[in-house]
């Protein structure tokens, strides 16, 4: 593993009104590390990773991503978001643009590169997610699994160094989950830094360097996958695992 911290979170709290969504979060993600975050719904997993690219902002403590301090209104946010790609549960593709335009609009408008170069890059990443033939279709013409792979390619097109996944397979039909996970496993092999909120424990076992378990806005367990799946320290984590792995 390469040395150097990619994401460092210390003493982070976040509130929605009077509801405390995150409580005293401390976490570091090394360069090239693959971290999987799991936990019951409402435990603050999504909120946490949405704080990494400034889709939400923490109220106290500090978050540093690739050397950039994440702060509301900061000028560096734009740079930060180009370094950090995000894949959403609901894909959030742009329905009025073709697949190719979905992939090139970021590079062209945000990074100001030439259209031809952007398209070449887009086709390269479509190839990477195994759907080069869909370039000229609109998102609504694709299956859920294909749309999610386009969303992954859209993030990759920004030449990101970190990828955040927010339950990428939760909105998919069961038979499409594997095609997305396969792409994510291949991506993990390229050495990109990944933080993934998911309940796909098979995927976690295969790629994770570090497992994080959250409940009620707190991190209860951070451990290596071997230990995590066989003998976690937290009893709550043990219970959670037994419930989702039983079936």
């Amino acid at each position, binding site marked *: 593993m390469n040395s150097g911290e990619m994401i460092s979170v210390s003493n982070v709290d976040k509130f929605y009104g009077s509801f405390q969504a995150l409580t005293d979060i401390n976490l570091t993600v090394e360069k090239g590390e693959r971290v999987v975050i799991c936990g019951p719904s409402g435990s603050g997993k999504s909120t946490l990773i949405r704080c990494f*690219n*400034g*889709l939400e902002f923490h109220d106290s403590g500090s978050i540093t991503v690739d050397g950039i301090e994440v702060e509301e209104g900061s000028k560096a946010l*734009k*740079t930060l*978001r*180009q370094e*950090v*790609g*995000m894949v*959403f549960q*609901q894909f*959030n*593709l*742009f*329905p*009025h643009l073709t697949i190719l335009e979905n992939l090139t*609009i*970021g590079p062209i*408008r*945000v*990074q100001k590169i030439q259209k031809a170069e952007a398209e070449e890059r887009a086709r390269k990443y479509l190839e990477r997610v195994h759907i080069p033939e869909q370039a000229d279709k*609109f998102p*609504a013409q694709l299956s859920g699994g294909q749309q999610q792979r386009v969303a992954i390619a*859209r*993030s990759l097109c*920004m030449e990101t160094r970190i990828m955040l996944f927010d339950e990428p397979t939760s909105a998919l039909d069961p038979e499409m989950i594997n095609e997305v996970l396969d792409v994510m496993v291949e991506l993990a092999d390229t050495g990109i830094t990944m933080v993934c909120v998911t309940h796909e424990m098979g995927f976690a076992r295969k790629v994770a360097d570090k497992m994080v378990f959250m409940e009620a806005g707190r991190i209860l367990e951070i451990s290596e996958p071997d230990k995590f799946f066989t003998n976690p320290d937290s009893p709550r984590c043990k219970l959670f695992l037994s419930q989702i792995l039983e079936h």
Partner: protein
Amino acid sequence: MTTRPGTKRKSRLQFSKIVNSVPISLALYFTVILGIIWLAYSGAQAMGYNWQWYRIPQYFYTLTDDGFQWGEIMIGLVKTIQLSVTSFIFATLLGLLIALLRLSGLVVGGAIAIAFLEFVRNMPILVLLYLFYYVLGPVFSLDRYTASVLCLAVFHAALISEIFRAGINAVPKGQWEGATSIGMSKAQAYRYIILPQSIKFMLPPMTGEVVHLVKSSAIVSVIAVAELTTIGRNLISDTYMSFEIWFTIAAVYMVITLALSIGVSRLETKYAVRT
């Protein structure tokens, strides 16, 4: 229960199907129009009105030895279109600005937008016109035409800003997140992602608004801007043919607004297939 809701619903469906069919709608439409014409005609008959339709065409165009010349109604029509188009452009820009202020999340911006909206929306357009022409006119030395354009633009900007706001809010929140996550600024997200998608939500109410604007442009006849309605009034005071002139003017307005509606519904189908 003596009547089963199922059968009631079915018969109602069939009824609306019959009423909505093209021949029936056309028949209803023409019955109403014929009714109005008959009422006007019999009313005029009762007054001993002398119809002089043959004198109308000269107000559209004349062909004399001097050559072809547009008549006064056509000149008024051009002025009405010019007035409407200019006002609409300003109204759209101002309306977009107001809508963005309202959506900006800034407390001051929101307050300004709401104050403007309530002030304009709750004032009769005639009062607004007097305000622009008699109060602001002398201060900023506005001529009649400029005052009219400003009045119409401000009045309709308030209504258009609500259309923009509704259209923008109708785009799912995930689109903002998608745009933000690839590093777009708020302005870029609006321009490339949100506004293009909100067009399809805005087109139908916007058509209504344009038609409304064309019709409310007639109000400026009270400060004698030489548009369609003013021309109509002048012609009537010259010729005393109130029925013929007003029917003609009404028909001209209807031609403009129908053309607009048809044009926009073409646009709607174009934007509908994209998504």
